[in-house]
């Protein structure tokens, strides 16, 4: 395998890893937006991009399965609204149980990220000692 091919493969692996990091936090991010306001899909995608300074660009189509799962579990609800003459928008709203679920998720998220940071910092420290 040439140097260029190895470089390309590594780049692909990094993109996949980054994608997985993002996927793990999408549910939490969507709920955090709905805690503030009732929103439809396009607005959520816009807010995610804006608040992350364009760093967290989640393909919008992949948000819907997560929203449907949250709705099936009763954490959010949706309402169809006709916009103009023929366009329908689906607005999502967080429910009381969704707020509780969001707070639980947030706690777990901080616990996990803090422990990952601790492990990584431990490695940094060890490497500094060598």
């Amino acid at each position, binding site marked *: 395998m040439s140097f260029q091919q190895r470089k390309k493969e590594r780049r692909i692996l990094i993109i996949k890893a980054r994608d997985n990091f993002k*996927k793990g936090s999408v549910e939490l991010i969507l709920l955090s937006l709905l805690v503030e306001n009732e929103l*439809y*899909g*396009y607005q959520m*995608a816009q807010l995610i991009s804006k608040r992350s300074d364009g760093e967290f660009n989640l*393909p*919008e*189509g*992949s948000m*819907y*399965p*997560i929203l*449907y*799962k949250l709705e099936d579990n009763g954490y959010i609800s949706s309402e169809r609204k006709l*916009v103009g003459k023929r*366009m*329908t*928008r*689906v607005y999502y709203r967080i429910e009381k149980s969704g707020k509780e679920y969001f707070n639980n998720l947030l706690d777990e998220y901080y616990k996990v990220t803090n422990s990952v940071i601790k492990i990584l910092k431990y490695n940094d420290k060890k490497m500094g000692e060598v």
Partner: protein
Amino acid sequence: MKHTKELHDYYNKISSLMPCNNKVKQRLLLEIKSNIEDFIYANPECSFQNIIEHFGSPQYICDSYIETINAQEIRKK
């Protein structure tokens, strides 16, 4: 509407790949269609490739759906 033919194929592809019932498919397509209209309205010069980048390829959307359902649900289908 811009990119009519490409979008028609895009919706058909999503519909054929999604491993879910028709109700979920119709709802997903309704939302994607309406939000693509918003996207095109906000970005009138966008290419079809820009739309795919923003909304995801049919395969990516389908994979995202599969990731959200557990093994038991898949077996039921």
